[in-house]
């Protein structure tokens, strides 16, 4: 895994919103690399900027109001920021695909499933409608939809939530992209259906070698699906590393707090859950030092004044903290 080359790399990605009296920096200097065939989990709570990051990568944010800047978003040797809108559209859905949280509303209600999957095939691969339809049937079979001949003629409202997410995956993988960005792909689904969809994503990844950027608030989903993790807090990555090591011995107090506050199914019923006190600071009102300092049990004076940056800690791990745990 270490040796695999990066297919997508963000360098110092920033997303801001112009507000009266300044710019609200919602994503503040996010950098990461996504390697061929791996799943990178981007985890964070609401307001951490994880979804904005994902939309920014595909340049799907509406600007204005959003203002996107970066030192570079490198995709297969090209900087996405330098591309024209037309060239970017050629890439979307072809080399770089995305699936969204709400399968209920993410499909066009007035278009048959078949046409919605045909579209990227015709658009990017230049297939005739007839050939595209054959591919579509094959894709539907691959994402586990029984009776694809019937499904292509159906409309989204006739399918269940899980089926719709399968259709979204079929659309996203239609042109065999090298990168798939999945933004909370199972959050709106029931837990038994979530297990199906995660298993499907893993199987398709093995088959196609697609690199997946998995965005979620659910650490358990990350543990089950991702190879590496990046933990976001208040618009920045605070810790990143291989999934096993990071879950085993988190370095950042925030990661540690998050992991400990998950209620687990244990035989002995535990006492109080360890909680992280306080709330996430508003993006417009970030402190000068570490954004987590006010909620951190290990904060020292330094934390209030100086903003920590990601430092390598060995074993492919990095943490932005003045007082890393287990360090």
């Amino acid at each position, binding site marked *: 895994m270490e040796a695999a080359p990066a297919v997508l790399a963000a360098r110092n990605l920033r997303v801001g919103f112009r507000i009266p009296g300044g710019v609200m920096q919602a994503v503040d200097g996010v950098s990461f690399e996504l390697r061929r065939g791996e799943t990178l989990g981007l985890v964070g709570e609401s307001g951490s900027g994880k979804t904005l990051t994902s939309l920014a990568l*595909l340049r*799907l944010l509406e600007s204005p109001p959003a203002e996107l800047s970066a030192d570079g978003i490198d995709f297969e040797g090209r900087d996405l920021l330098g591309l024209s809108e*037309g060239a970017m*559209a*050629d*890439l*979307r*859905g*072809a080399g770089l*695909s*995305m699936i*969204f949280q*709400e399968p209920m*509303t*993410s*499909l*066009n*209600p*007035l*278009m048959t499933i078949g046409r919605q999957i045909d*579209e*990227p095939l015709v*658009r*990017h691969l230049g297939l005739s409608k007839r050939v595209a339809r054959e591919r579509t049937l094959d894709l539907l079979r691959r994402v586990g939809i029984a009776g694809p001949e019937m499904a292509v003629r159906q*409309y989204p*409202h*006739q399918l269940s939530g899980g089926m719709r997410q399968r259709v*979204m995956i079929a*659309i*996203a993988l239609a042109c065999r992209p090298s990168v798939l960005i999945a933004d909370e792909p199972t959050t709106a689904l029931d837990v038994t259906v979530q297990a199906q969809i995660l298993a499907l994503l893993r199987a398709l990844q093995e088959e196609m070698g697609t690199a997946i950027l998995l965005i979620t608030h659910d650490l358990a989903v990350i543990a089950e699906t991702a190879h590496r993790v990046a933990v976001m807090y208040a618009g920045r990555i605070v810790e990143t590393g291989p999934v096993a090591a990071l879950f085993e011995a988190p370095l950042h107090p925030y990661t540690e707090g998050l992991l400990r506050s998950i209620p687990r199914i244990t035989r002995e019923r535990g006492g109080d859950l360890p909680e992280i006190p306080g709330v996430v600071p508003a993006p417009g009102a970030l402190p000068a030092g570490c954004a987590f300092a006010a909620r951190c049990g290990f904060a020292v004076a330094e934390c209030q004044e100086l903003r920590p940056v990601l430092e390598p800690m060995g074993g492919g791990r990095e943490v932005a903290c003045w007082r890393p745990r287990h360090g």
Partner: protein
Amino acid sequence: MLSYVGRRVLQSVPLLIGVSIIGFALMHLAPGGPLAVYTLNPTITNQDIERIRVVLGLDQPVHIQYLKWASGMATGNWGFTFFGGRPVLGVILERMSATFLLMGSALSLAILIGCTIGVLGAIRRYSVFDMMATSGAMVALSFPTFWFGLMAIYFFAIKLGWLPSGGMYELGEEDNAVDLMRHLVLPVMVLALVITAIWSRYTRSAFLEVMHQDYMRTAKAKGMRAPARLLRHALPNALKPLIALLGIELPALFSGALVTETIFGWPGMGRLFVDALNMKEYPILMGMIMFTALFVIVGNLVADVLIALLDPRVRL
């Protein structure tokens, strides 16, 4: 689908009966009753009026009168005008073609321009174009139609003398299409102006709503280019509320034509209505009420069927 249309047609029967009863009652409750117009004529004596009353069957009980009238309506015998004794249905149909010509041209023009302005405004929201379109629409909507009509006549007919000020033909030019077009320009322009203003607003808000839906983001993430996103994804979804609106608004648009027809002396239904009202031509008024009710029902039915064809979620 067919059974749905059938049911809807059946459902509209009681509605039509209701409208006809109300209309019939109003005519009879009007001051002086149906024969009021004769009482103003000094050459007609009371005996004459009594004789007319008997001849027209107005001495019979009201429900008999209504049934007679209603069965006549159902069989296409809409009665005869008081003045001239011409068949009402014939008079209405004759005027209808003139109105349809005017309305049809104005409406198609207005929807074409209005929708284009609306879509462009939605795509480039808050741009200079959008701001101008918005304020333009506000101006067009805040002045009364007759003012625009009079201004148009003043400038284009009187000052510049480019176009005729009213009517449908010059005398003796009844079959001249060019002459008809010349007469059509001003009323269509005035009528289209207001409809354009309204429809640019409707279209803009319908598109704005659709363009922020999740499936539009999906279409963009699939790599679809802007024209394809607009035509294949946004348009059908935005069209739905617009069709529903058109079904509701069409009759209202016809009443808008009333003012325009009167100003430009256009021999359409609007002017027929105004004239009939002035002359207390009850047979024509009743006929027109029924005609309008029918038009409203058909308009809504067509809109509902179109929406059902567009949206698979609408179960018929």
